């Protein structure tokens, strides 16, 4: 992370919105449920100039109230980067944690957002508390997170946090790799049998931004609508392939899954494969080429006759 200005979140938001530097501010507010934060999206009035905005006391008061509701703490689990797709042609400021900042870099790599219209507000983070564990622990993805401090930011709220040592590969994935194929299949079958094909994982994933997803296509119909686990397998295997070398491991899919399908296992496996094979970590370098979008003439050829 490059050295940049440390600022107060609310002061910054107020300033950015008042001066018209941004039209949309994406951050967090307290949610109605315990241990959760909800997204807070603050708009200035569409098409209104700053002068008009300032002369309307109602709008002014509303804006001030919303800015005061902004928070950042260890409940802010949502990956807000997903909202960038919805505000493509507007000037946006967004609050990102370390993991979310990698998602932003991924989108910059894939030319999905315009850096000139984007103000990134980095939030150093020690990990998000796992509400399913009644708040006693942080999420697994956070425990194994290699970027507690944002990799890209224009402003930073709060001091950088120390980066703990993290394993190269999640111990759970490592253990699973060592099991015989039979048992790996049993595990996969068990995870896939839980899936109800609600597509929450896809909808929450900042890397899943296709306007028409293969899962929604009816011609050809890639994913059937039965409760046969093979339908869930088709969906997840194909989605995993799409995320190969792109998934940053933010954990949004796992946190959002209503059936607790552990997709992390499979994404982690592919992520470590890509890192080992091509030395690439998704979402670290804005100008790097994603490995699955290029090729090498000396790539492994052993598996081909």
């Amino acid at each position, binding site marked *: 992370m490059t050295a940049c200005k440390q600022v107060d979140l609310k002061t910054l938001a107020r300033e950015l919105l008042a001066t018209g530097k941004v039209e949309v501010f994406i951050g967090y507010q307290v949610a109605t449920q315990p241990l959760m934060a909800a997204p807070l999206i603050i708009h200035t009035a569409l098409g209104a100039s700053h002068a008009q905005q300032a002369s309307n006391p109602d709008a002014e008061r509303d804006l001030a109230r919303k800015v005061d509701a902004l928070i950042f703490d260890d409940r802010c689990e949502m990956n807000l980067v997903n909202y960038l797709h919805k505000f493509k042609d507007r000037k946006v400021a967004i609050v990102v944690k370390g993991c979310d900042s990698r998602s932003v870099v991924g989108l910059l790599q894939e030319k999905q957002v315009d850096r000139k219209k984007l103000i990134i507000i980095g939030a150093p983070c020690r990990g998000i508390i796992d509400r399913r564990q009644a708040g006693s622990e942080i999420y697994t993805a956070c425990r194994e997170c290699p970027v507690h401090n944002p990799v890209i930011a224009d402003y930073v709220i709060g001091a950088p946090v120390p980066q703990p040592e993290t394993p190269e590969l999640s111990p759970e994935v490592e253990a*699973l*790799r060592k099991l015989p*194929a*039979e*048992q*790996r*299949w*049993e*595990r*996969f079958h068990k995870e896939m049998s839980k899936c109800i094909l609600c597509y929450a994982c896809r909808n929450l994933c900042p890397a899943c931004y296709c306007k028409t997803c*293969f899962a929604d296509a009816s011609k*050809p119909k*890639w994913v*059937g609508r*039965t*409760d*046969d686990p*093979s*339908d869930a*397998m*088709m969906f997840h*295997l*194909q989605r*995993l*392939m799409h995320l*190969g*070398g792109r998934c940053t491991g933010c954990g949004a899919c796992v946190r959002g899954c209503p059936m607790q399908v552990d997709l992390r296992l*499979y994404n982690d*496996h*592919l992520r470590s*494969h*890509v890192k080992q*094979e091509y030395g690439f970590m998704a979402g670290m370098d804005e100008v790097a080429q994603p*490995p*699955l979008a*290029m*090729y*090498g*003439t000396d*790539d*492994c*050829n052993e*598996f*081909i*006759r």
Partner: protein
Amino acid sequence: MNEQHSEWQPRILAFLCNWCSYAGADLAGVSRLQYPPNVRIVRVPCSGRVNPGYILKALQEGVDGVLVSGCHPGDCHYLTGNYHARRKFRLLKELLDFVGVEDGRVQFAWVSAAEGAKFAQVMAEVTEKVRALGPNRRLAKKIGNPKSQ
């Protein structure tokens, strides 16, 4: 039905690139080379055109094995199609191995237009490997697919 007909035979789907492997299959044909009749061929413009989804969908629909074959590295009609395919298939293979799909269900080969004999040999080897694995039960859909009950 006699004994011979009721015996299980593997069904294999082969995606062959138009410029090399499909011509290789043609050469095997005109050379009168024998190879197992278990293979159904789908002609594709390039091995790089093969979406991993095609392979997965074929397995779900109940084929016992899938082969993807294209031009040798460096010989691609579109210059780099097979290089891109190689990375993609490496990832797919890594994923299928990890989830526990048997090694050999999905296979890859480079067969040039001049290699009619290699084509026949690859087909024989692929068929034998899939025969040894037995019917595809893991990824095949059970609901609404009488063939994979």
